[in-house]
């Protein structure tokens, strides 16, 4: 419980805001629009404009900033590394020099723009997952990807896999914790000792987890079969999604926004 409860990146945050209530399909469709805006943006106006819908979304969703910060925590390390790399490797007007390391103006500016875009993309994705329950997300995905079925893509099966994964991730994390403690009590520690010993301890954790998962999978398959599961065959869904005018309106506004951001690029 204590070890794995830290993993909360972009976890659903209950609420009843406009963003929460949008049809999950509309929210999913909004993603490529927002992303296109972020990627097309050029120049300061475009950058600001691309960020606006995301900012607006967060303001309405009323997601607490602490939850947001916790979700982004691990990302910062990655972002700072990429900024430094860009700044020192890109050739251009020297801004600052220290031994063999030179920071160029172009590199710094490119790095900052890159970070800005990445942060926006992550924020957009997090807004989606923080305001949409996983169940709705998978349901919406299955619905939206429906046309791909004709091309032979196993859409239903993929959605079912995601549902089952959602259902079992907490169970498996719990199991991982128990097995880890059990091996620790036999002297197998993942964090101390020689590399060889740590490797051994990793195997001692992974093999039981794998064996446990296989056993679970087998039992689950039997239980599903017993409950008449046979794929998509004649299956109905409890969750019915209903587009409302609002959903279209939001998508339309986003679309217009993206066009506007893009226009700046070409004129």
């Amino acid at each position: 419980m204590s070890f794995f409860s830290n993993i909360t990146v972009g976890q659903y945050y209950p609420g009843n805001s406009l963003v929460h209530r949008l049809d999950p399909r509309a929210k999913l469709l909004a993603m490529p629009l927002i992303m296109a805006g972020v990627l097309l943006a050029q120049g300061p106006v475009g950058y600001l404009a691309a960020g606006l819908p995301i900012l607006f979304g967060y303001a309405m969703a009323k997601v607490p900033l602490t939850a947001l910060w916790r979700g982004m925590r691990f990302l910062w390390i990655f972002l700072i590394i990429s900024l430094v790399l860009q700044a020192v490797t890109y050739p251009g007007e020297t801004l600052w020099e220290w031994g063999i390391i030179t920071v160029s103006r172009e590199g710094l500016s490119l790095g900052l723009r890159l970070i800005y875009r990445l942060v926006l993309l992550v924020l957009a994705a997090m807004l989606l997952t923080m305001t949409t329950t996983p169940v709705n997300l998978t349901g919406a995905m299955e619905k939206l990807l429906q046309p791909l079925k004709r091309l032979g893509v196993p859409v239903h099966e993929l959605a079912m896999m995601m549902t089952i994964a959602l259902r079992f991730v907490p169970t498996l994390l719990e199991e991982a914790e128990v097995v880890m403690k059990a091996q620790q009590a036999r002297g197998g520690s993942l964090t101390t000792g020689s590399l060889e010993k740590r490797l051994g301890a990793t195997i001692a954790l992974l093999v039981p987890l794998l064996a446990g998962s296989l056993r679970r999978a087998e039992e689950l398959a039997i239980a599903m079969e017993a409950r008449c599961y046979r794929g998509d065959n004649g299956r109905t869904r409890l969750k019915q999604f209903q587009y409302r005018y609002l959903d279209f309106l939001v998508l339309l506004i986003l679309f217009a926004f993206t066009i506007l951001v893009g226009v700046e690029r070409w004129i």
Partner: protein
Amino acid sequence: MVHNRVILNLQGVSFSYPDTQDKKALDSISLEIVAGEMVALLGPNGSGKSTLARLFNGLLIPTSGHVLVEGQSTQDEEVLWQIRQKVGMVFQNPDNQLVAALVEEELAFGMENLGISPGEMTEKIEQISTQFGIHELLQSPPHRLSGGQKQRVAIASVLAVDPEVLVLDEPTSMLDPGGRQEIMRELTRLKQVGKTIILVTHDMSEALMADRIVILEDGKIVLQGEPKQCFSQEDRLVKMGLEIPPGRRLAQRLKQKGFDIPNDLLCVKEWVEFLCLK
């Protein structure tokens, strides 16, 4: 048993697992189960009781003999799905039989598979969750529930498709006493409303509430009858590794000491009545 409609009919059923063909997991089992009856299937580990449970709804197909559900054979692939709807099954490990990420979706799963309309599902979920007292859990993910709650959700979601027979394969063996009580209370309620129930267990005290006990050993039925009737064969049951309720064990001990103890003393209440007699 008011009605005598036979729901499940096993005719000379034998079964062997593919990898151990020389050894029969079940050996010529014949058994009739009538509507509204509650049967407890008892036996030590490896006696074949779980295998038998899986034959009832065609999860396993007999190597010889027939399993008939309301006259339809599980060998007939055409009707297999109808049979599985008629014979619902609850398994031992609550964690490994819940499919959905929310209780509500779990209750819907079987109905979704049968193509029931969303409106009808919503109604049924409302009704069954109220019956099982799990209404406030509808929006919870299963991993937040206690073992007893999980198993109740499992039973409720199997009953959501209105099966004729409910088969439970050691539903309490992984639960704590509180969870066990929850499930036994639920089963008592279902029995009262006339559900046909087959309970696989190795716990004698759970088997007591059944109308009939069927005891398996080495893939054969070795004993069957009313619970109290079966307890008269105590020595044999102990030898099989079955657990005798403590009330019976006490009677046995005192009898050996030469005391005259009636044959039907089981629970504390009956003992107190007997001991406080004048």
